């Protein structure tokens, strides 16, 4: 059987592409490993109230001690993907897509991809964010609008609108925690001074429902974000995928790990492995759409070209974490019903170094308190006293630093199918650290460059197969994501971005994937 379109991967880009094809009446085949979330539902009360009378070993540690295996093996992973019910998100990644080298790389083979454990930040890019790309924000605009309707995005029209784009179709923003509500109110009082200094604060745009939407319930602020998958109020691409499968608008073939493609009689042959029995399996198609995530799509491309020599650029926006202390909240009750995702965003327009940074301010109500135990310098009992009395006064700023030439990494295929990945993050300019500390101090939240953890790898990779206006290399893509010299093979994930701005890019990748799917569909219809 020959398929018109095969999509590889079910993450945000793959699902958005499938939606784009579906809306043009084309039914693609989606190939995916597709690990599924366990069938667990949270209790119907606040997690903390539940914990007062119930042992939560299964939820926080897991019967196989899953959460602790990460701690004992000293693996760096976000607390969310370490929690027992969320481990399906990164299951088998090391075996299915081996990576050598010093860099920790987060990959997912779950249905819905890494977005199954995402923070659901969904931000439009403006033209300034799309540097070096042959498309602009207006090209993506109709797809942002369509996806906003599909997802249900909460947010507000505020000082960040110039950086986050149109507010059309947004649901009302999520309820702010008390601390962050205080911060926003101080910002509003000192707005003129802060804006003049290049600091802007506003509400986050999240795929979190603040009212019932499309058959899904609104956020209940019960604090299970860190522990349970498929909470209906947090959008994941798996929701759209399930709907498309149900409506027979996509054919979904799981347990398939795509290795490469070859060509046969004018058709593209997708060579894969059935991960259940390790047997080889192949599929024929006219067009192949790679949406397996930057790391894995790059592997598929290099593998198909049998290229063990080329080292491709790898970009990401590294992440710097600033603890933010709100002194008047020391000794306050833990806010058990605060949403443990980004509540606010901040943009720093740093004219002096010609850089725009964006960060998310996250509440810390959901993670296990034990996570903080070995980060504190006191004796065991005193650490627990600090956890109990000091943590309610703490939030964290995740500040993204845009990709730059000097922190560009590289990626190369080794002969054993291992990818050699090298990321470089370097140090953060001290002027940035001081500027951030000063701005938050004015808003009543204290941080200090000394407490900032060195930049870590982010999860927004890209740049390996850049989209350019006039492709002229084997690893360039056209405006439609088609790889130079590989007719019919398109890339729709982060690989095509030649610059990673200081922003969560998931929404832009989805809009771009949908744009490319739309273009391909129109081409097919014209034929």
């Amino acid at each position: 059987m020959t398929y018109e379109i095969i999509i590889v991967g079910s993450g945000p880009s793959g699902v958005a592409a499938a939606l784009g094809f579906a809306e043009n009446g084309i039914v693609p085949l989606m190939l995916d490993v597709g690990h599924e979330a366990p069938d667990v539902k949270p209790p119907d009360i606040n997690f903390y109230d539940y914990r007062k009378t119930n042992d939560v070993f299964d939820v926080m540690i897991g019967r196989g001690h899953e959460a602790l295996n990460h701690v004992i093996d000293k693996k760096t992973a976000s607390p969310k993907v370490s929690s027992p019910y969320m481990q399906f998100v990164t299951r088998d990644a090391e075996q299915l897509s081996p990576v050598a080298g010093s860099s920790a790389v987060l990959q997912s083979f779950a249905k819905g991809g890494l977005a199954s454990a995402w923070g659901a930040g969904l931000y439009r890019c403006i033209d300034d964010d799309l540097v070096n790309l042959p498309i602009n924000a207006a090209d993506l605009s109709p797809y942002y609008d369509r996806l906003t309707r599909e997802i249900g995005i909460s947010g507000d029209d505020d000082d960040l609108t110039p950086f986050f784009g149109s507010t059309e179709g947004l649901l009302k923003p999520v309820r702010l925690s008390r601390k962050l509500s205080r911060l926003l109110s101080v910002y509003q009082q000192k707005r003129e001074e802060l804006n003049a200094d290049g600091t802007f604060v506003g509400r986050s745009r999240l795929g979190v429902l603040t009212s019932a939407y499309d058959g899904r319930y609104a956020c209940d602020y019960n604090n299970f974000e860190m522990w349970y998958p498929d909470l209906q109020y947090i959008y994941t691409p798996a929701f759209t995928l399930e709907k498309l499968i149900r409506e027979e608008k996509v054919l979904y073939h799981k347990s398939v790990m795509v290795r490469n493609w070859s060509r046969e009689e004018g058709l593209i042959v997708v060579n894969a492995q059935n991960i259940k029995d390790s047997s080889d399996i192949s599929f024929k198609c006219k067009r192949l759409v790679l949406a397996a995530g930057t790391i894995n799509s790059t592997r598929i491309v290099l593998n198909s070209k049998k290229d063990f020599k080329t080292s491709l650029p790898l970009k990401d926006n590294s992440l710097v974490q600033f603890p933010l202390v709100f002194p008047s909240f020391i000794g306050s009750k833990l806010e058990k019903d605060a949403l443990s995702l980004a509540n606010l965003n901040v943009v720093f327009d740093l004219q002096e170094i010609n850089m725009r940074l964006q960060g998310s301010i996250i509440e810390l109500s959901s993670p296990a308190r034990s996570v903080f135990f070995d980060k504190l310098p006191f004796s065991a009992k005193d650490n627990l006293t600090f956890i109990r009395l000091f943590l309610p006064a703490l939030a964290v700023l995740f500040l993204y630093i845009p990709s730059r030439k000097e922190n560009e990494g590289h990626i190369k295929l080794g002969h054993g199918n291992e990818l050699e990945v090298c990321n470089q993050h370097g140090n953060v300019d001290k002027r940035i650290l001081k500027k951030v500390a000063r701005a938050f101090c004015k808003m009543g939240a204290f941080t200090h460059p000394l407490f900032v953890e060195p930049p870590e790898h982010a999860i927004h990779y890209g740049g390996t197969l850049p989209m350019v206006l006039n492709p002229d290399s084997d690893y360039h893509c056209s405006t439609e994501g088609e790889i130079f010299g590989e007719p019919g093979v398109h890339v729709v994930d982060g690989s095509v971005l030649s610059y990673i701005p200081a922003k969560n890019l998931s929404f832009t990748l989805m809009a771009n994937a949908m744009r490319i799917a739309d273009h391909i569909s129109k081409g097919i219809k014209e034929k």
Partner: protein
Amino acid sequence: MNMSVPGNEAERIYHAIFNRKIPASVQYHFEILLKKIESRYSNEEVSKYFEAINKTCDLEALEVASRHLKKLPVLTEKFKIMVYLAETCPENYRVFINEEQGFISAGISLISSLFRTGYKSVKGMAIITVNKI
């Protein structure tokens, strides 16, 4: 200071952190994890750990000092894992979660904790020095 110390390893560590008797479920899981923790360290480090904990009753002091001096990583790791396990028990809920409002009392508790940590660190360093750990 070579003294006989009551209780098994799990009981002693739990008592050093929480000042109470270890719940059966925590003890069960901790003992399963002990081998895994130890397998991440050399035999020499593990023996040094057992030798050290048998020389003192005050594991809390030994742990904070060894954490600061980067000695006895096995002890630090076991403390950490014990805290993770203990947090899941309802009886420890109030150890981790503050449910009472009180800026001044919290300030006093935190300042006394700083002094207490100072005392424990000095005591732990003395234990390490005297026993040549």
